């Protein structure tokens, strides 16, 4: 080959799509990688570094020793594990029967159960926690009634019980939804062939149905554990401080950034989260999700016998009442003037809303700004990573995905502490304020924390697009850039939108990193505002009012986006089916 020709080859090579990558793709990957390193990897490593080193930088385990010598910290450690485990257990008790009813019986509760699945998710547990005290506390509505009628009280909200109860009530849908999907995906042929070979009843359920649905259950259970472990606000609102997240937060904010105990607590939290994820993965490994074969049908549903119907509907109504109680509670609280030692508030008022509209509209704006930035960045980064992963052979693309997804295992408090420590000497150019008290850092924390959701959504939607869709565009004259703009992104639009909404809404109710990073009340988003109000008895009314407003907005947002995504999916489904 002549020199001129080989130069031409060199120049032309990066333009070819298949099996290669272009310089601009590499640059994009590098930029995203850098962002992830600066705002995820380095802060987390900093936390770990501080936990394991003396002030002179030498390796030490003494911080861990002193951590476990403190009675409070030992208790916090055990309490966190206990609360996590018990929340998973209680969530399972709520969710298992519901999932089983929908999969196995013909009955009209399906819509109710779907509602049960979504309602708790649009309201973070800390918002309803105060109201739950009023409803289920020692002198709350329920116990007042129980005392009057049966002369007994149930300690729903005593100490750690309160956290477990509230968390389980909010997070059991993770188990319910995952398990329902898994059960619905079991081919009836699986069950029928077992029956054909002589299995029936509970034995059939134990040996065939449950193992096939296990991955769904484990995924849900791991999520519940992570969520509970991560949550710092709910315990604080409920006045429970002897758990890890709360201790990490309190040590850093009250004793200071140099106190190593907070870092040790952080490292333990990260380790526990990773362990939970790893454990779930281990159980799932090698076990394929049961999937419906082409032309297969889901498990046969039976008619409910009368006693079964009573039990099923009874259970649904009970869970529904419990699920609705925080919503109902903050609604009541938001309209109440005084509410204590009574079943229902005694005086109703609109003052709380007036207070909120007078004092905190800027919080709504802050939330919109931070979450808008975060969700926007998330879908851009998510789309980019999805594209690099699925459509190029760029070295390191898997690592990018791994790091971005890894954010799931980092509790918000830990990320917040990492930011404070890593960027503590950095100031914002021109503005002259420290970076750690600049509002943008909150948006960046949201971006990192919600990236896994947006990324999964983007990856899933790109996976649905057959690569020939893009090849056809190139064949007709569109280069890489034009193909992405005209074909890939429009076809991914549903998934991108879903990713944006999920990121936005979940960021809007985020408090664990927010609580670490808000340095001035004027920078506070709604979630922090609610928390602040809830700190004082007098603030509970306005806090509930703000909560009602936030939950309403989140609910409407969820509903609208759900409708949009569904409309798009229906439109494309017919064609996808051809493949």
């Amino acid at each position, binding site marked *: 080959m002549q020199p001129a020709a080989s130069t*031409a*080859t060199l120049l*032309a*090579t990066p*333009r*070819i*799509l*298949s*099996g*290669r990558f272009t310089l601009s793709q590499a640059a994009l990957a590098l930029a995203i990688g850098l962002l992830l390193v600066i705002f995820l990897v380095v802060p987390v490593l900093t936390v770990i570094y501080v936990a394991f080193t003396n002030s002179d930088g030498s390796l030490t385990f003494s911080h861990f020793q002193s951590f476990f010598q403190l009675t409070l910290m030992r208790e916090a450690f055990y309490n966190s594990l206990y609360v996590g485990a018990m929340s998973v257990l209680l969530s399972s008790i709520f969710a298992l029967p519901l999932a089983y009813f929908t999969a196995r019986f013909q009955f009209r509760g399906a819509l109710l159960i779907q509602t049960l699945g979504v309602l708790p998710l649009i309201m973070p547990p800390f918002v309803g926690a105060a109201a739950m005290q009023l409803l289920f506390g020692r002198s709350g509505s329920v116990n007042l009634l129980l005392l009057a009628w049966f002369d007994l009280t149930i300690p729903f909200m005593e100490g750690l019980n309160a956290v477990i109860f509230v968390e389980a009530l909010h997070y059991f849908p993770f188990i319910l939804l995952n398990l329902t999907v898994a059960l619905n995906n079991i081919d009836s042929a699986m069950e029928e062939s077992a029956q054909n070979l002589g299995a029936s009843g509970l034995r059939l359920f134990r040996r065939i149905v449950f193992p096939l649905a296990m991955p769904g259950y484990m995924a849900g259970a791991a999520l519940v554990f992570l969520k509970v472990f991560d949550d710092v606000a709910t315990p604080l609102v409920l006045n429970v401080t002897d758990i890890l997240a709360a201790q990490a937060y309190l040590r850093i904010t009250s004793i200071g950034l140099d106190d190593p105990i907070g870092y040790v607590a952080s490292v333990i939290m990260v380790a526990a989260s990773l362990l939970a994820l790893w454990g779930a993965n281990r159980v799932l490994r090698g076990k394929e999700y049961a999937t419906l074969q082409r032309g297969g049908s889901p498990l046969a549903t039976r008619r409910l016998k009368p006693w079964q119907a009573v039990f099923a509907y009874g259970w649904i109504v009970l869970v529904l009442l419990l699920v609705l109680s925080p919503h109902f509670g903050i609604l009541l609280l938001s309209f109440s003037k005084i509410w204590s030692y009574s079943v229902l508030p005694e005086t109703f008022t609109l003052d709380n809303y007036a207070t909120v509209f007078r004092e905190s509209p800027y919080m709504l704006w802050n939330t919109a700004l931070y979450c808008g930035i975060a969700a926007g960045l998330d879908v851009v980064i998510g789309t980019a990573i999805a594209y690099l992963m699925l459509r190029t052979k760029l070295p390191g693309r898997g690592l990018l995905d791994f790091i971005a997804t890894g954010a799931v295992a980092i509790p918000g408090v830990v990320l917040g502490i990492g930011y404070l420590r890593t960027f503590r000497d950095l100031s914002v150019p021109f503005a002259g304020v420290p970076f750690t008290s600049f509002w943008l850092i909150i948006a960046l924390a949201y971006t990192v924390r919600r990236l896994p959701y947006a990324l999964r959504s983007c990856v899933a939607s790109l996976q649905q697009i*057959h690569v*020939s*869709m893009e*090849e*056809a*565009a*190139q*064949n*007709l*004259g*569109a*280069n890489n850039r*034009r*193909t992405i703009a*005209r*074909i890939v992104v*429009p*076809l991914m*639009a549903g998934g991108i939108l879903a990713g944006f909404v999920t990121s936005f809404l979940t960021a809007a109710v985020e408090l664990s990193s927010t609580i670490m990073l808000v340095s001035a009340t004027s920078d506070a988003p709604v979630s922090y505002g609610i928390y602040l109000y809830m700190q004082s008895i007098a603030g509970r009314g306005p806090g509930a009012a703000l909560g009602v407003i936030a939950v309403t907005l989140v609910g409407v947002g969820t509903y609208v986006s759900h409708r949009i995504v569904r409309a798009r999916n229906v*439109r*494309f*489904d*017919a*064609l*996808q089916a*051809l*493949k």
Partner: protein
Amino acid sequence: MARVKVEFRNIALSYGRTQVLRDIDLIVEPGEFFALLGPSGSGKSTLLRVLAGFSRPQAGQVLVDGVDIGDTPPWERNVGMVFQNYALWPHLSVERNVAFGLEERRVPADEVKRRVAGALALVGLSEFAGRRPNQLSGGQQQRVALARTIVIEPRVLLLDEPLSNLDAKLRHHMRREILALQRKLGVTTIFVTHDQEEALTMSDRIAVMDQGVIQQVGTPTELYDRPVNRFVADFVGTINFVRGRIEHRAADHVRFHAGGFGAIELPVALVPDGEDECEISFRPHMVEIAAAGAPLLPGYQWLEGSIVSGEFSGEFVRYVVAVGEHEIIVDRPRATGASLFRPGDPVLTGIPFNQIRVLV
């Protein structure tokens, strides 16, 4: 449309250790309807993707109209490809799908409109312009894919198993339609298929591929009548093979002998010199069957055998006849009222001398 020649020179391509294409040399003449025929995994689709620019060979050149396009990206090649799954974009209407290539070429809007209308008229879908692809039937989607490709007036038209997603009846109809369209446009067309009947009925010439190698290139009748090797003979149509050896060579004939099969005398012209180990082949529908004792036609080698099985399929009956240690497939046309042979019936099998081919 311009008629251009396509040349593949020494193309080699492998994915890791798997060699997908080996030393492919092929010329497709201007205006030809050319088929790449082979089983799945034979490399035929990959060869098409090499031409379209979606697969990059490790060695060799692709020339279109005498110009090496190896370094040209797919979007500048102007070789229109119709994908097996049509790859119609669900977010664009039929009209916008067809307009895509013209828009990418910065064709003025009014001309886009005119040419899109023309292309849709050509495939008979004018009234479906505003629909979404998923509102069309499989056959209609196929036509949109065709219109979307030919509207840009590509130098070469590539069809990747375009009929495999259609039901049998529609497939026959679309065969004729695609061929008529190609004749009308005169565009050099390369067509990938695993269906030998499709290749035989539609193509000017066919390249039979197996394991990344072109086994034979020729017109449909050449491939059918004179397959160069066992693979081609077997893949194109149904055929009987009998392995044996040349026992005796005379001036005008040779004697072929296979175990339990008896001897067959063949015209010397059929048999290559030298090699004695060989295989004879003949098509099932040329073989006659006669009941024992029936009058025998001349020009056939008649061998005694017995019926193993018979399958009635409408137009003909396919018998398997045991002749010595060989099983011979025999297809006989079905005449109304004729009685069928039963398994075990002794028969005489007549193999016509002039239909025998010898493969070394």
